[in-house]
């Protein structure tokens, strides 16, 4: 097993887990964040395949812009809310929403 | 210019000045030198052009970079600050390692406030960054001259002055030498 195999295995796990998370998360902001993680793993794939220019574009568009665009669109449509009261795991504060 | 006394306590002057433009110019030049990593003549010519262009474009928004005390010892002061900062970074990481690896998880978080004497936006940004990376503290908010800080191991009844002495004083002494 060479180092490239190990990274490919890791990134396959990352892509699959985050892609399924994108499908199954009920909260759309969480799904947008998961999309940026998918593009992280895909950009590492491009580096393994020795295509630094494609990896550069994927990193720029996927990590920076697409997550932002999706979150902005979801916010504009009023489709998400942040579960403030669940963020503290053990102790709940007053619900400000 | 930005030497005028601030109106309210903690008021920040964000208008661009010659001095903030100079800071911007130096920073852009350093970034260009690091990114190209060569001193060949064509790189330097291109670097001068790019640096001037970027500085001219970004000058109207450069007000937050004001407040550097220019002197010949500036690089030395920055090095001293980096040394203090590196020591704190190492200390904080061993602190984090100890807390994470202890099975009983010895934390007792709390939120405290700290007052700063720095008057420029750049100085406060550097102070907040340093506090975030030092042992057990995380800057949550900077509002005028009050910093709200999440402290991972907060003593029970702590007031503002004690918290300031414990968290911010070391960095302020190092920072005030080269930034207002």
């Amino acid at each position: 097993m060479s180092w490239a195999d190990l990274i490919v295995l890791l990134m396959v796990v990352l892509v699959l887990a985050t892609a399924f998370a994108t499908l199954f998360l009920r909260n759309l902001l969480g799904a947008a964040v998961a999309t940026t993680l998918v593009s992280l793993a895909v950009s590492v794939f491009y580096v393994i395949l020795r295509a630094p220019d494609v990896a550069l574009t994927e990193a720029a568009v996927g990590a920076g812009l697409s997550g932002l665009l999706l979150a902005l669109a979801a916010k504009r449509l009023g489709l998400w809310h942040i579960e403030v009261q669940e963020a503290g795991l053990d102790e709940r504060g007053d619900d400000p929403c | 210019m930005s030497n005028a006394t601030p109106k309210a306590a903690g008021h920040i002057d964000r208008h661009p000045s010659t001095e903030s433009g100079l800071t911007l110019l130096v920073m852009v030049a350093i970034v260009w030198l690091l990114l190209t990593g060569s001193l060949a003549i064509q790189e330097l010519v291109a670097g001068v052009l790019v640096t001037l262009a970027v500085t001219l474009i970004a000058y109207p928004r450069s007000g937050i970079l004001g407040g550097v005390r220019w002197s010949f010892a500036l690089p030395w002061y920055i090095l001293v600050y980096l040394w203090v900062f590196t020591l704190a970074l190492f200390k904080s990481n061993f602190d984090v390692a100890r807390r994470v690896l202890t099975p009983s998880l010895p934390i007792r978080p709390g939120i405290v406030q700290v007052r700063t004497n720095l008057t420029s936006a750049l100085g406060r940004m550097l102070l907040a960054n340093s506090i975030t990376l030092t042992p057990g503290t995380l800057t949550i908010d900077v509002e005028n001259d009050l910093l709200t800080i999440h402290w991972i191991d907060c003593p029970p009844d702590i007031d503002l002055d004690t918290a300031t002495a414990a968290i911010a004083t070391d960095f302020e002494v190092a920072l005030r030498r080269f930034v207002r």
Partner: protein
Amino acid sequence: MINILGSLFILVGALFCFLGALGLMRMPDVYNRIQTGTKAVTLGVLFTLLGVGFLHPDWWAKLIAIGGFLLMTNPVGSSVIARALYKAGVQPWRAEGDR
């Protein structure tokens, strides 16, 4: 020899990254997770950059640029997340003794 030194630095950096991720798993609330995550991972990246600098000494300029950018942006990012949560009303977790 210099290869072994660089590899050791990379290993130390990887260990600090691991500690940060472990803290992310173990801590009880989101502010403590931000704390352990940011600090340990920042030093981990710096050690990795140092190790790669030992392996390839001619890359030092770009490595310093990456390190400087990360050192400036990483704390700002975590502070902004913490501030957004604080403004949105997430209460920090308190230990059993001092409610």
